[in-house]
């Protein structure tokens, strides 16, 4: 299957491991990812007030460019996914703002792409790789590609906030009891840990404004993961990954409150189970190095 692919700013730089393992996994599963030829940051979060227009321009430019490649745009970062999907809904539901956004994008396009017939009506659907795996590829097919089953590895799935909420607009899975990552982890052979804090927010972008407050949110999640004996945490969001990784490093350095629970992207774990070479996995980018745990687990 062929999908337009939007990596987003963070996957092109600080979360390269997420991007490169996702591309590797997609290739193994015959998913053709066509990266948009030109793209910019989606804006991180969608504006939620009813008259906002400016914050819609970036995500809608991305979606409008995607329509020339496919009617589905796949993305991986929870922030990008949430922003693109919700901005798209505004375009579908609010004719007045749609007109403003389309007019602006038409007028401001670079001369080489300027097209007076430029239109966008919200028809591209925004999908997350987890959805593609569940709904199009099927977890049984994922299971068949596993060459290094992660048998007995206790993994806690961590969803965070933006992959699932608000459920009426996102609709990827149940907002309180999601199962999509659990199903994936089972297909990889893992022992899935029932993680009570899986949909709790890690403190999000407050990390750049009030780091100590965000750190407390992450600390609560980490203590819980450690208490229930998780050996790895799995996420879909570069900010969850960072917040839990950074706070964990500090907790491990300063006190014995927790045992190490390295935080991986789900695609890193997939690539590991599907036999990727170490250089694909990108474990060297982590603050809390997953390699000792991975070696100890015999992987």
């Amino acid at each position, binding site marked *: 299957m062929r999908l337009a692919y939007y990596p987003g700013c*963070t996957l092109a730089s*600080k979360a390269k491991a997420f991007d490169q393992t996702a591309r590797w996994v997609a290739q193994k599963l015959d998913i053709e990812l066509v990266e948009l030829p030109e793209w910019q940051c989606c804006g991180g979060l969608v504006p939620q007030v009813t008259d906002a227009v400016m914050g819609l321009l970036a995500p809608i430019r991305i979606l409008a460019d995607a329509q020339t490649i496919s009617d589905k745009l796949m993305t991986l970062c929870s922030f990008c996914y949430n922003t693109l999907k919700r901005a798209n809904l505004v375009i579908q539901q609010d004719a007045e703002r749609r007109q403003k956004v389309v007019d602006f994008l038409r007028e401001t396009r670079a001369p080489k792409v300027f097209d007076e017939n430029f239109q966008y009506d919200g028809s591209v659907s925004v999908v997350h790789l987890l959805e593609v795996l569940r709904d199009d590829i099927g977890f049984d097919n994922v299971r068949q590609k596993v060459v290094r089953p992660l048998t007995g590895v206790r993994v806690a799935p961590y969803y965070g906030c933006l992959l699932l909420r608000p459920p009426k607009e996102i609709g990827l899975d149940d907002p309180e009891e999601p199962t999509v990552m659990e199903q994936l982890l089972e297909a990889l052979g893992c022992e899935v840990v029932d993680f009570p804090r899986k949909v709790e927010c890690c403190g999000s972008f407050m990390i750049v404004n009030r780091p100590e407050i965000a750190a407390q949110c992450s600390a609560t999640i980490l203590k819980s993961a450690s208490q229930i004996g998780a050996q790895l945490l799995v996420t879909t969001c570069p*900010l969850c990954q960072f917040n839990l990784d950074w706070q964990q490093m500090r907790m491990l350095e300063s006190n014995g409150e927790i045992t190490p629970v390295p935080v991986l992207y789900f695609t890193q774990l997939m690539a590991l189970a599907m036999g990727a070479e170490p250089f694909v996995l990108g474990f060297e980018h982590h603050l809390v190095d997953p390699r000792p745990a991975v070696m100890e687990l015999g992987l």
Partner: protein
Amino acid sequence: MTTVRLSSRRLSSEILSEIEELSGQNLYACYQCGKCSAGCPLGFAADLLPHQIMRLLQLGMTKEVFASQAPWLCVACMTCATRCPKGVDVAKVMEAIRTIQLREGRGALQVFLPPAELVAEVPQLATVSAFRKLSL
């Protein structure tokens, strides 16, 4: 017999209508169950909890609401919006409160510059998002 007429009209003000309009929410739909506050991950650090913000707005106490740090600590995680039994999207109410202040030039964003080693490491989407929500 005396008729007592209860009305919220007395409390209506331009600013309350603006909050309702920008958020698309009916402030009076909230029946103060507190579920939003129970799940708010940032509630522990805020001077007011989400349900208290809702109550103050219902009572027309916008001065107190605009003086609160709570909307500036809200990270739009949508936990409150997901769980409210009355379907009130408190995350949007918080955003409307921020937006009104930002548009009046009363931006409460003080960029507490985090330690340099943190700035170097933090994913850029965090910085982009913080400016999107806490500045104009």
